[in-house]
């Protein structure tokens, strides 16, 4: 490497921080807090270089900040990294959330601070690496490397039932991922023996049934991470038991690795199989939206409620991707950012309440708005973003996903009867309404009404540090809600490329079977109406 690649710096800066922290004494927690904050902030500023240096025009190369160094030559594995617009947004989401999370743990984590910060920094490196990898094995290495620090975060710093939750988390995700490893090996063997993403995408030759099996192996690994109904059962446990920081990272970034996996790997590498399984995946996405929302209505534990709302919200992301329209894909990507910001903020707020009262039971609260007006204000803003009120980021994402689905050519089947795309959009919209119901009910039960519980009467409002934790997220909610264009543009080019890929496949299929109706893109009438 002649000059150090900026993306490489962003990936390994947190890891360097973790290594540095190893040399500091464990009985000086403040040094470790400062060190972790320093390195995560440095990573954030370095990643701003990616943001400002990124070219979003059509003429720009697909992957930027690219670099390639042979890694295990005898395996054909190389350290090949680069980011497209979607990866750029997710890398930034990671680098924004991590310093906030570090700051949020200054009071809540008092035990083994050194190990905690090391785990957090290693986790950040692995997450950024997952988004930046352009080699299938490198991707898998980062993907799996995420598991161990997350496992430790939940298992060491979690609450009472943490061992069960962390093991469940690990086993679910690990079992699903190892099958993807075999699929990766199979794919590489049928793409000239290379693991390079670009070469594999170019040269992959698979039979119809083989492509479907391989797609399912990839999709299973990603679907567990998203998590899609019915593979979601690890999530409520993991979220409930995880420390606040773990929940924020889990909801904020880890779940996006699943949807990112669909966008980057499962859809473009196996388009035919993806078209085949699309009705199933879209149906599961809608079921997840509604099921998650309904489960939220009956939760007694605040954290569990937010966890189930993640199932619902990530269903929107999947629905947007499965719509296979420009609006749906960009909306899905945008919704990934929104969910990272607003659910991350929700977990932080629930964590603040937990630090004050050491309970997460909704029934213990009520009327907190009088006692802590600023915390209540932040909670209401985040809630409005979460339910997609116009003016907040959530509205932009949900609107794009639903309109993209409505305008698209997604077609499902129910007992042999075709189900039109509009139904998917309508049921998704029902999920939006349910979302408003459960979130507003939560706000009402926790913050509104009279302050009855005497234990709540002396709770302090936000401290200065907590302001610094929440304000960046509230600002992001407003900015992404009012000025969405700069954050939509990077996703547009990758979405168009993905659609173009699907359209070539469709044309090929139509040569074999001219009767085949078009399946991707928007209805022309709808587009004409909009122009």
């Amino acid at each position, binding site marked *: 490497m002649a000059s150090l690649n900026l993306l490489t710096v962003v990936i390994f800066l947190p890891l360097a921080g973790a290594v540095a922290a190893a040399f500091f004494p464990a009985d000086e927690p403040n040094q470790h807090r400062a060190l972790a904050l320093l390195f995560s902030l440095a990573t954030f500023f370095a990643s701003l270089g990616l943001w400002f240096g990124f070219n979003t025009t059509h003429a720009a190369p697909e992957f930027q900040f690219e670099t390639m160094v042979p*890694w295990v030559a005898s395996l054909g594995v190389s350290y090949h990294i680069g980011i497209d617009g979607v990866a750029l947004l997710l890398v930034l989401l990671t680098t924004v959330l991590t310093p906030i999370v570090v700051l949020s743990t200054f009071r809540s984590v008092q035990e083994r601070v050194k190990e905690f910060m090391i785990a957090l920094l290693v986790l950040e490196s692995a997450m950024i690496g997952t988004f930046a990898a352009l080699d299938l094995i490198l991707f898998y290495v980062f993907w799996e490397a995420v598991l161990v620090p997350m496992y430790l975060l939940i298992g060491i710093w979690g609450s009472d039932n943490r061992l069960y939750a962390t093991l469940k988390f690990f086993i679910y995700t690990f079992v699903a991922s190892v099958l993807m490893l075999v699929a990766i090996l*199979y794919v590489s063997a049928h793409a000239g023996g290379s693991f390079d993403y670009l070469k594999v995408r170019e040269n992959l030759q698979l039979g119809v049934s083989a492509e479907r099996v391989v797609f399912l192996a990839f999709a299973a690994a990603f679907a567990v991470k998203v998590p899609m109904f019915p593979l979601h059962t690890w999530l409520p446990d993991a979220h409930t038991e995880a420390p606040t920081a773990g929940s924020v990272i889990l909801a904020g970034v880890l779940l996006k690795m699943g949807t990112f996996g669909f966008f980057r790997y499962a859809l473009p590498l196996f388009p035919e199989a993806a078209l085949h399984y699309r009705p199933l995946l879209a149906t599961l996405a809608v079921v997840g939206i509604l099921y998650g929302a309904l489960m939220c209505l009956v939760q007694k534990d605040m954290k569990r409620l937010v966890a189930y709302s993640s199932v619902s919200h990530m269903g929107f992301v999947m629905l947007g991707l499965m719509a296979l329209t420009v609006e749906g894909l960009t909306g899905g990507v945008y919704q990934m950012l929104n969910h990272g910001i607003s659910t991350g903020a929700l977990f932080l707020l629930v964590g603040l309440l937990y630090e004050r009262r050491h309970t997460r039971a909704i029934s213990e609260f009520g009327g907190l708005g009088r006692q802590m007006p600023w915390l209540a204000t932040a909670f209401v803003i985040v809630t409005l973003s979460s339910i997609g009120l116009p003016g907040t980021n959530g509205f932009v994402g949900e609107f794009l996903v639903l309109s993209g689905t409505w305008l698209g050519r997604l077609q499902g089947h129910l007992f042999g009867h075709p189900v039109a795309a509009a139904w998917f959009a309508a049921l998704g919209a029902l999920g939006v309404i349910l979302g408003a119901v459960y979130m507003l009910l939560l706000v009402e039960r926790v913050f509104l009404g009279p302050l009855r519980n005497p234990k709540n009467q002396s709770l302090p409002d936000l401290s200065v540090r907590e302001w610094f934790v929440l304000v960046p997220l509230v600002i992001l909610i407003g900015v992404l809600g009012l000025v969405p264009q700069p954050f939509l543009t990077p996703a547009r080019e990758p979405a168009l490329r993905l659609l173009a890929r699907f359209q070539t496949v469709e044309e090929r299929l139509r040569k074999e079977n001219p009767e085949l109706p078009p399946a991707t893109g928007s209805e022309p009438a709808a587009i004409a109406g909009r122009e």
Partner: protein
Amino acid sequence: MNGFSPTDLAAMLPLALLVAGALVLLLSEVFLTSARRGYQVGVTVATAALSALAAFSASPAGPVFGGMAVVDAFSTFVTVVVCFGVALSALLAGPWLRAREAERGEFYALLLFSASGMVLLSSASDLLVAFIAIEIMSLSTYALAAWMRRGRKPAEAAFKYFLLGAFSSALFIYGSALVYGATGSTLFASIPHSSGALLATGLGLVGAGLAFKVAAVPFHQWTPDVYEGAPTPVTAFMAAGVKTAAFAVLARLLVTVWAGPQAAGLGSGGVVTVLALLTMIFGNLLALPQRSVKRMLAYSSIAHAGYLLVGVVAAGAMGARSSGIAALLFYLAAYTATVIGAFAVVGILERRGAPAEEPNDAWDLTRLAGLARRRPGLAFVMAVFMVSLAGIPPSAGFIAKLLIFKAAVAAQAYGLAVVGVLTSALGAYYYLRVVVYMYMRAPEAEEAPLVSPALSVALAVCALTVVVLGIGPEPVAALARVASALAP
């Protein structure tokens, strides 16, 4: 057969060095006062290092002793791995034995004699040479396993190991006799030129004898008891060295047989596939309920034999021969460093009870509880070894499994690859349980763990090897690839 030429003897220099080192240790025990301890570990490590250096620097000589043995890149690689294992085991054995007042020079002499058998085994290309090498290796290990014959369990372990070892040797030699009857020769290379029931039976018996040595299911029953009962440094040596050498000869034999014109008629590929499946599945399943860490590692070594067998099966396929052997060799190197490191931690923590005491809970998981607070460094390296055994990146174990499964996919053995990854996910459960105890449980008051510079060196070398092979595996992987070209 030709006479022995001086070049033949020169090619055997690594083996000769190991024997010379063993003799030096034996003699020193006679002439030096037994009050002076400590030099034996140094002599053993130096001997192993010299032997590895000699193997590494000598040019591959090809067939020696009239084709009864082969010195090639493959045997060189195995020799280096065996020497690495011997040196690490000796570093572990020194403090461990001293803490139990059981250190004598003969221990290290036996270690080196056993290693000389392993080195010969890696070169054997004749059933009789293989048999002699197996016996040299095994007789020394029987004695080592009986080194601490205090209490019922160690005695039972040593006796069981001897009895079943003798049984497997008998199977091997009887099989060799049948092969000789069918082909008129004991050379590996002559086997694939014939076929028939007699040869298939003979080959089956030889294979069964080797399956005992590598502890493949259903020939594994001795492993847990012996591994648990033997002194921990010896267990580490068995898990690393004996497994490496036995797999070396198994791979050379089977690849020679499968490359021949009559391979299909012998039908051995299917048998090995079944063995690999059974070994992966049962090795991992049986390890699940174990509470004794030492016993869990014993079952895990069975499971790893299953993954190694996948490499052997892959090596039998047309397009995957060299990638299968290279994967096998890399796996053996990675496993040697990982398993010796893991057993070293077990040895450090195990109870040093009175001789008569039954060490039933000597290796219970609770002895690891809260280790991250008591000995953070020790807990960290143990976590590294567990991650590597589970095959989670970035560790040597992951790259090793990746190579194995890649070879299996190249050989179109998809079933083996799928079962392999699923059972390794199962394995993650019991390896991570160790991490749970070390990091997520409160410490219990325990006697102070063993501390010694030699142990620290051994642990550091093991952990460093695991991490380096996980992050920068290319040099070793390239060497394994070179070594995969077996000399004819």
